[in-house]
């Protein structure tokens, strides 16, 4: 247990303390911490992320999150195995739900509509990035089974 705490402290430290040096969101530490939490293998939704951060943020927003508060919270999350990553088959099923006509693919419009209007909407940047990887430029369709396989392979 102390091993994972060690790991966490060094890992987080190197990015939180130097986070703003190389940050994509230097003025938004929450976005920054969200990245850290997710890259530790946790897969919270935006709402769950906000709950986590609500536990550790200061009474007065200083723009920073203290390591002494963050570490115990994060260790607990890891030990309780909360917000586990999503298995491939569950992900596939989610795409199938969106694929109302059971085509085996989603059109560009369908995907954009779902991702930017439903659930916890994507920003334009997120949408563009997903499309660039997922879309088949010739057919303008997203064959989600292939997309998932590709992402899983790239991860490993």
């Amino acid at each position, binding site marked *: 247990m102390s*091993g994972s705490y*060690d*790991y966490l402290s*060094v*890992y987080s430290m*190197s*990015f939180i*303390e*130097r986070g*703003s*040096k*190389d*940050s*994509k969101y*230097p*003025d938004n530490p929450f976005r920054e911490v*969200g*990245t*850290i*939490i*997710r*890259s530790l293998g*946790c*897969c*919270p*939704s*935006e709402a769950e992320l906000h709950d986590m951060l609500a536990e550790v943020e200061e009474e007065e927003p200083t723009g920073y999150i203290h390591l002494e508060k963050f570490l115990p919270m994060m260790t607990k999350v890891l030990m309780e195995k909360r917000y586990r*990553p*999503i298995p491939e088959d*569950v*992900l596939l*099923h*989610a*795409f199938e*739900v*969106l694929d109302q006509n059971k085509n085996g693919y989603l059109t560009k419009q369908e995907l954009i509509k*779902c*991702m930017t209007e*439903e*659930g*916890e*909407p*994507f920003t334009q940047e*997120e949408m563009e*990035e*997903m499309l*660039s*990887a997922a879309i088949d430029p010739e057919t303008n369709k997203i064959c989600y089974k292939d997309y998932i396989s590709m*992402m899983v392979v*790239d*991860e490993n």
Partner: protein
Amino acid sequence: MGCGTSATESQAKKSEKAIKAAILIQRWYRCAMARLEMRRRYALNIFQSIEYAEEQAQLQLSDFFTFMLDHFTQLNETDTDSVSHFFDGISDFNTTSSDLVLLEYEKMIEVPHSYRGPRLSFPLTAEDTAALLHAFKYHQQLHARYVLQLLHETRRVLRQMPNITHLSTSYSKEITICGDLHGKLDDLLLIFYKNGVPSEKNPYLFNGDFVDRGKNSMEILIILFAFLLVYPNDLHLNRGNHEDHLINLRYGFTKEVMKKYWYHGQKILRLLEDVFSWLPLATIIDSKVLILHGGISDTTDLDLLNLFSRNKMKSVLKPPNPHTEKKSSLNKTGLVEQHSSVSKSMAKSPAMSGYRGPHTNDRSDAEKRTRRLHGGTRSDLPPQMHYLESSACKLPELTAKEWKQVVDILWSDPKTQKGCTSNKYRGAGCYFGPDVTSRLLKKYNLKMLIRSHECKQEGYEVIHGGKVITIFSASNYYEEGSNRGAYIKLNPDLIPRFVQYQVSKHTRKETLNQRVSVVECSALKSLREKIYTHRLELIETFKQYDPNDTGYISVGEWALAMESVLHLDLPWRTLRSRLVQLGSDERVDYLSCFDDLEIERPLKEVQPALVETFCRYRNDLEIIFNIIDKDRSGLISIEEFRQTWRFFSSHLNINIDDEAINKLAHAIDFNKDGSIDFNEFLEAFHVVHKFEKRKNQ
């Protein structure tokens, strides 16, 4: 009615399902992106750490390089050629003889009819700049004569400028501010394409580091200097830490010039040394925005910075003689030093405000005093470095105080924590915190500081509560896809607007995943090479944690060991999975990180420790050999090799007996003819990745 309710019910259920599905996908996607972002971050982290470690290493070798240069360049000045003697003599020409000098270049250097590149005529016009841009787009090269003429004219113009340029936005709408370019011509061309070329209506400021690393440093300088000559009031340049002829030896610019210009390369480099030292140190816009290359320190004094002769600061690797400071402190007031360093060009400077103290009318007296200050022997040098004493100082030196002022503004980096500490990462300058920034801005009634010097993923970064901006204009700096470039548009209300871009080699758009993988791979490769060149020391350290010689240590111990040997300040635990294998009990198999690597051509006759040392200092040795090899034959004698190596190793405090050196020298004399082909030699100490080698065979 019943049907209607159940229809809406099932519809509601359906959309609830859809929402849940959407959230799931979004959750998954954001996590995948976060992991990708982390990989990109640590890849950049690795590149940066290695870069700064090398900079630091070079600074530590500064004495040695200075000695090498002085020793070997002196030797070669004895075989004079009239051309170089002539050029040396004209370094102090005043403006009226400029035409005469340009004519002399014309007489001395012939441009053959077969030359198809641009032919410049002075004074330059917009046509010339257009011709240059066109030529460089098509990979042509400007002839040495025009380069020399251009550099001569540039120096003439730069000398008239003060150390700190003051600009106003009232005459033009917006000024464009660019950061480091580092020889990446594609980025400069992209900027001009997006933003227009410099002109009276389109002013530009380039904030240093135009050269090194990229392969078109010369072309970038030519373009910038040409525009400077055509639009001297609308094209502004600040000096960067790479505008330094000794740094250029290590980071590629010197090599580029010698390769492109051969015989005239030396002259060009010598003139460049001077031109660099005449580049202004900083710019202030509307008395509110301070722009300089590196940063500031808690002792930065803009008034002092504006006073001395900036051209005395030739290189960060040639600090002032410590004896100077001792002797000058004997003088009653510090003002004496400042008097003696005022040159005639400074007297014309409009920005003499803030300087308090009497002017000395008798300049020659002050100069005499200065020369006496430097007359003392440098008795603290080791015997083999006494050559340094004999190299005559043509100009009076900077004081240590002045020197620190310049180094601080060219080399410092901002940090998030308060305070000001020395920049151990780079080996020069400081780390300055938000309190240091606030204090300086308040003191001089400034609104913000714009600087460059650090590569940023997005091409720019805003920190210290908006008071400090980093702007970096070389996209793909470390590797294809590593970062964007950016420039700032600053309008009269001084609110910066950022424009980002990225030069892309591929017409086919790659996914983020693919781009990150390329950068990550490249970074890890560099890191593994660095690890390999410290193999023996690492193994020794690992074994300290493994007294029973099991071959395994804990992750924590492994991370500690790596950092203690390599000093790269990297997130070792995060990187562990990429560098080393784990055993069944989650302990690290520490020898596994050397599995994929080997030395290109192992020399059986030579001790492994010596081989490893050569690998580590391969780049430095390359510079040294190039200095020695004046006739560019690619060969040096065994005796030269032995002598050089002896001096080098004494600086590094490496104890290697003569016998081992002899063995090595003879082992690498592959032809057995008494001379060493050093390129072949250096190739032998290349660290290669076995897997890649097998793939390419």
